[in-house]
């Protein structure tokens, strides 16, 4: 599990997990931040700084090394990627598709924005590596499946995480 966040320059990894593993991801972020600064784009409003802080034992130098920008719409997410220069810090796109599941934005727009994001993700992964985490939507739909599949088709590496014990709701989506 620790290797989950060990991304190398030039690499971009897609991690598909159920929402229940979000706290684990936050813990791993704290661990990664001990060795290197990180840039995080939070697409799902989930960067619970308390959980990360606890995993980092409150150490300020670790917390100061993690930079976070939150995107609340898919337009903002695209703008974040577009507006970021290549960095030396690895980049994490947390719950990347969450803003893309928003049905108040027409599906054609959401696909267009996703297409816009993909080459940007490739570009940004070249300097220090990039990780994308994706969770299934609360209410699965054909549209959200299409978005997930599109992202999957572009990723060099795809990790599928499932719960170790039988989950109450089996993961039908991946």
């Amino acid at each position, binding site marked *: 599990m620790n290797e989950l966040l060990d991304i190398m320059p030039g690499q971009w990894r897609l991690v598909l997990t159920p929402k229940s593993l979000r706290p684990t991801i936050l813990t791993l972020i704290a661990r990664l931040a001990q060795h290197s600064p990180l840039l995080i784009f939070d697409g799902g409003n989930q960067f619970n700084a308390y959980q990360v*802080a606890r995993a980092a034992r409150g150490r300020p130098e670790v*917390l100061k090394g993690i*930079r976070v*920008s939150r995107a609340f719409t898919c*337009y903002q997410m695209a*703008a974040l990627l577009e507006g970021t220069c290549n960095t030396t810090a690895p980049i994490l796109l947390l719950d990347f598709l969450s803003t893309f599941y928003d049905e108040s934005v027409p599906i054609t727009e959401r696909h267009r924005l996703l297409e*816009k994001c993909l080459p940007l993700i490739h570009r940004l992964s070249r300097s220090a590596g990039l990780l994308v985490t994706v969770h299934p939507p609360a209410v699965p739909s054909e549209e959200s499946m299409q978005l997930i599949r599109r992202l999957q088709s572009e990723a060099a590496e795809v990790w599928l995480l499932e719960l170790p014990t039988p989950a109450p709701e089996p993961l039908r989506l991946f």
Partner: protein
Amino acid sequence: MIVTGWLLDVFTTEITNGVVLWLLGEDGQRYRFEHTFLVTFYVAGPPERLRALWRFLQSQPESVRLSRTERRDLFAGPMTVLAVEVSRPAVLPRLFQMVSQAFPDLTYYDADIHIALRYSAAHRVFPLALCQIEADENSEVKAIQALDTPWELDPAVPPLRILTIEPDTDPGHAAPAQLIVSYDRCRYSLPLESAQALIAGLRATLKRYDPDLLLTTWGDTWLLPLLQKLSKEQNWPLPLNREPVSSVIHRKEHSYFSYGQIIYRGRQVCLLGRWHIDRHNAMLWDDYGLDGVLEMARVTGLPVQDAARLSPGTGISSMQFLTALRQGILIPWHKHQAEHPKTAMELLRADMGGMIYQPIPGLHRDVAGIDFVSMYPGIMVRFNISPEVPRAQDDLTPAPGYPGLVPQTLAPLLKKRLEFKSALASLSRWDARYKPYQARASANKWLLVTCFGYLGYKNARFGRIEAHEAVTAYGREALLRAKEAAEELDFTVLHMYVDGLWVQRADCQTPRDFQELLEAIRQKTGLPIALDGIYRWIVFLPSKVDARLPVPNRYFGIFQNGTIKVRGIEARRHDTPPFIAETQMQILEILARAPDADHLPDCLPAVAMLVKKKIASLRAGRIPLEDLLVSQRLSRELQKYRTPSPAARAAIQLARVGKQTNPGQRVRFLLTRGRPGIHSWDLPKPPDPRTVDIERYEELLLRATQTFLEPLALSNKNCLF
């Protein structure tokens, strides 16, 4: 010709070359004018793409005027954009849709702005403005000028002709038998069974009276759709619009997510040339009525019908658009601004709201309630907090530079609110201006309350989360400085809540005693602060779950002038049955008679008698069923409930008889004995009064009574029986 009158409506139609204006003339006539009006949207993007768009537009049948021009983006500053000017405003939405689908990668500005806002900005007029219009013999406007401003406390009110139509019962509850129509001193009923007579009657009235406002109940969701249907069946047109030729405007119902809640908006029917307001579907109608709606329209620039049906944020958004349009600031179609990166440490510090303290629970005497006046908007204006303005180094210092878009928009609104506050303080309740002032002040207050939330809203065109966070940071700083000022002057701070504090000092009982403190706070914070009142006594209530835990914002008290202030208890909650809410308020009124806290025990016999009477009435079945209704919102789709809430169970009952309830809508129900324990109110069959669960209502009543008596140490259950 030159005509002076009030601007009633501004809109465009397929056949006009510009806009149509309807004016209520000072001479009592209603005038219709047309005014050529060009509308423009702007496009930014890579030069080759703009050239391609240019070619695309030139090949379209609709004539447009294209040019390159420089305009200002709020964040990016001046930029070169392609201007697309259209001579028929009605064409713009269609053209824009086509363009944005063909060129989705480009950035669009000023694309989806309401025509009335555009016109208001361009000609410096506003809904209900008193205007002077110079027109030619074809009623084509040559010049228009507003003679007043939206900022007057007491504008001249146009003599509106109001036609009221309402069904004799709530259509959701039972089928109405007739419509009650009234205007001037006239009042009559039209039975619904004869469609022909109904349409004939309404036609005659509409033609003869020619109302400016059609005021209905359930007009949007039931009445007007029904009338239109009947009119069609009868093949007899109903002149609902004043505007000849055009059809009425329909908007579908929808539920949307806002501030953590689902809000339901019923379908809407809007008219052209006159207004239709459905009291039942109008935002905050109970709060501020027609005066408030008209004020909303004046101040936001939105036409009256839209202003009446405002969703949160639309009013403020419109005001920002007006400011932007007047200054040549581009209004983006989609918000692109994302958050600048923060470290995890910075996020810990920035991501919080207002300070909410735990009060010292129990009874306290001679307590002053002091509040910052419109704290968040005040902070935005005074310290220049705006999305495009870099934040000042220290909190509570103004950001240098020109006032930003947001402070510019809010400043006149805030000034008006302060003026209303002092005007109302000096007016007697019997003054004819009191009620309209109150209504207008309420509309203003509502806008101000929304503007802070709107600043952080993800879809707000000019929103920015950093600005939102700056406002809360300044708010926390202001409250803490107020606390420090109070403690330096030896006051005890009993409670603090975001923008208000409750303080006490042994020798302070009159307003004058607190002036020194108010002045000190003003000095330290730079913000206006006012005395809400001095409580003869106030009780801060503990948690119902655990008496050790004080609960913020749950209290009741009596001011020195005898008025009651209540927060957070059953009487304030929307789901409390009126019977219980009323009893609580009546208990408070009894307690208010005590000259001071020491005499409260003397009130106990009167309270006991009141409660005994209420219980007796309840047991004898004398309480009308409407007063026993619990009213709760449906928080999600029915199938999404794992265990249905009482509201959901009531909605299921309605669904079984074919009545759909949407998320965000309220359901009303009675508590009944046995299973299922609830009986939905709007079922076709009225409930059997004998099934009402008297014991549960009695228990709710006693619990509500205990809310008061316990903290006052007046609790003595025995004496209530």
